[in-house]
């Protein structure tokens, strides 16, 4: 067997010979055909309606509220869930942590503590209406990845101004690529047995979204 360094050189040499391209480093990204749809055509109301419709197709619960109603709406959703123990990222506004529930703020929580929580509340980076996708960049307020993975119930607070219609519009909003990202399109699911869709394999089984109408 060859040494690691030799294998690297061997593979790169093989590729350069095969492509007859001796250029070092990456080429300029230009001249590609990109005439697919970038921008959506829906008005603001229709865009939000599409987002809600798609989320509900995934069996996600969606409620809408005004910006000043967020704390009360969160409290109501938590109460409706019948759950008591919740984890939350430290970046969440203090007034969102409704009284009467057991909150564990993620100051380096152990995995087992997160696993034992019954739900999680986070913000989001963006929503894509076309596919009903919630985008997390795992910034403050969105939590580290494990936070939205182990608890069975996820409540996500999404602002109307964060909702775009098409996937390319999301990429236009992220000129600086994130180090970490998770795109969630409905709850964890499988169709591995006879193509029968079953909700909730390993990720959260319940996705809840509060859509905050922050646009006039």
């Amino acid at each position, binding site marked *: 067997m060859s040494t690691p360094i030799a*294998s690297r050189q061997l593979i790169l040499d093989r590729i350069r010979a095969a492509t007859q*391209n001796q250029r070092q480093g990456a080429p300029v990204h230009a001249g590609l055909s990109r005439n697919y749809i970038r921008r959506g055509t829906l008005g603001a109301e229709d865009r939000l309606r599409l987002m809600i419709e798609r989320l509900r197709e995934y069996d996600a619960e969606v409620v809408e509220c005004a910006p000043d109603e967020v704390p009360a709406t969160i409290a109501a959703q938590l109460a409706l869930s019948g759950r008591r123990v919740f984890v939350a990222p430290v970046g969440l506004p203090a007034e969102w942590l409704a009284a009467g529930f057991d909150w564990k703020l993620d100051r380096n929580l152990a995995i087992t503590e997160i696993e034992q929580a019954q739900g999680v509340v986070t913000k989001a980076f963006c929503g894509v209406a076309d596919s009903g996708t919630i985008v997390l960049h795992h910034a403050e307020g969105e939590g*580290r990845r494990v936070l939205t993975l182990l608890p069975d119930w996820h409540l996500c607070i999404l602002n109307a101004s964060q909702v775009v219609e098409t996937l*390319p519009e999301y990429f236009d909003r992220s000129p600086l690529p994130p180090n970490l990202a998770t795109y969630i*399109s*409905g709850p964890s699911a499988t169709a591995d047995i006879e193509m*029968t869709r079953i909700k909730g394999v390993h990720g959260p089984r319940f996705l809840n979204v509060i859509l905050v109408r922050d646009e006039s």
Partner: protein
Amino acid sequence: MSEAFTPHPILDPRLAPPFPTAALHVLRNPQLRKNVSHATDVIQTKRARLVAEKTDWQQLRTAAAAIRNQVLENLAGYLEEFEARCTAAGGTVHWASDAAEARAIILDLLHQEHASEVIKIKTMTSAEIQLNPALEAAGIRAYETDLAEIILQLGDEEPSHIVVPALHLNRSQVREIFARTMGLESLTDDPKALTAAARNYLRQKFLTIPTAISGANFLIAQTGSMAVVESEGNGRMCLTLPRALITLAGIEKVLPRFADLEVMLQLLARSATGERMSPYTSLWTGVTPGDGPERFHVVLLDNGRSSILSRPTERQTLRCIRCAACLNTCPVYRQTGGHAYGSVYPGPIGAILTPQLMHMEYAQSLPFASSLCGACYEVCPVKIDIPKVLLELRSQVVNQERVQAARFGDPMFIGMKAASTVFASARRFRTAQWLGRIALRVFTGKDGWIHSLPGLGAKWTQTRDLRGLPDQSFRRWWAARGKGER
């Protein structure tokens, strides 16, 4: 270094029987055929509906093909860019020229981690290099975590599809496997109960096993990031919870920029599972302190890919993003399922990819396992002209056989030689027709059909009838036409 492990007998192209032999076995299994056609019907229907709602589907395909072409034309540069970014972000990049080297690198990394167990996300590349048998031989227990892969692993079954690898099994077969291997005798065959059993079986493993192995759907050169697309959340578990993560990826998996995902992600889930997006897409870049594994390794696998790159017609094979739409639509795959292909890559894409990965030394029957109907090309999200590549590979296989056949006096070779001599001269052709008419008359029934031929001809008449030759040839009829005959 020496390796001792037993390779997959069914899906190792070096050991598997040729396609027609393997297919015969499957065609006699009505349960399997029913399972395969049910699953492929369901996916195809969902795919068709979601593709139809995308008015820019063809533009997306064209863009995707262009992006993938750009990657392949500049592959060395993009890989170097990826390596630099990934390394800067705290990842370690390894290069494996073939399957044996990839296995050795991974085993070495696992030894450094003192790993006796690993959790795995479904990855085609791992199956390609037969990693699991190698791990087993090294005393490392691998836990597959994708539901279908658990079914296969526990049931000692082989995958038969790229995206839904256990589609050849129905619910009662899955129930039997789970009940037997998990000790759950009262388990019902409700898919919900079966899924819950898998969830319970794995939960503790996710939380306690500190080493994971994954594949990747895409590598991003611009950022050094990786992307994994999945449905169940088992992928997120493996990518997030362990202390060390090893990702195995083919060298062709690179995309130039982060934003190129806007094309690929719109095409992938729609083509693969008939969804607008798969439930989870995970992106990570090297190591992020406080979030996810502390050690991250990427193993870049060549294993025959660079030789595919050097051939102009075949290069497009490497555009593939493993959506398996070509399998679901293929009239051959839909009848035979995946095992007949004797490769972890079945269906039309497997028929072109496998023999090439084997440097055309094995799996030469696969380019012929197609009716050339072109359905695979039509659904391919990156516009791989599979029929064109199939034809190119067929001609290579025939050229190989020509050399061997001449040596061994193969009857088909002699027949072809004879035919080419006969067809080269009009006089010889007329004589042959005349002789043939006399010879075949004996076998032609009263209905004008030949039902049974002796010797080599029996190979044809075993499964179909042959029309007898007419009393006169077209040329004789044409020549006689002016002389008052009709």
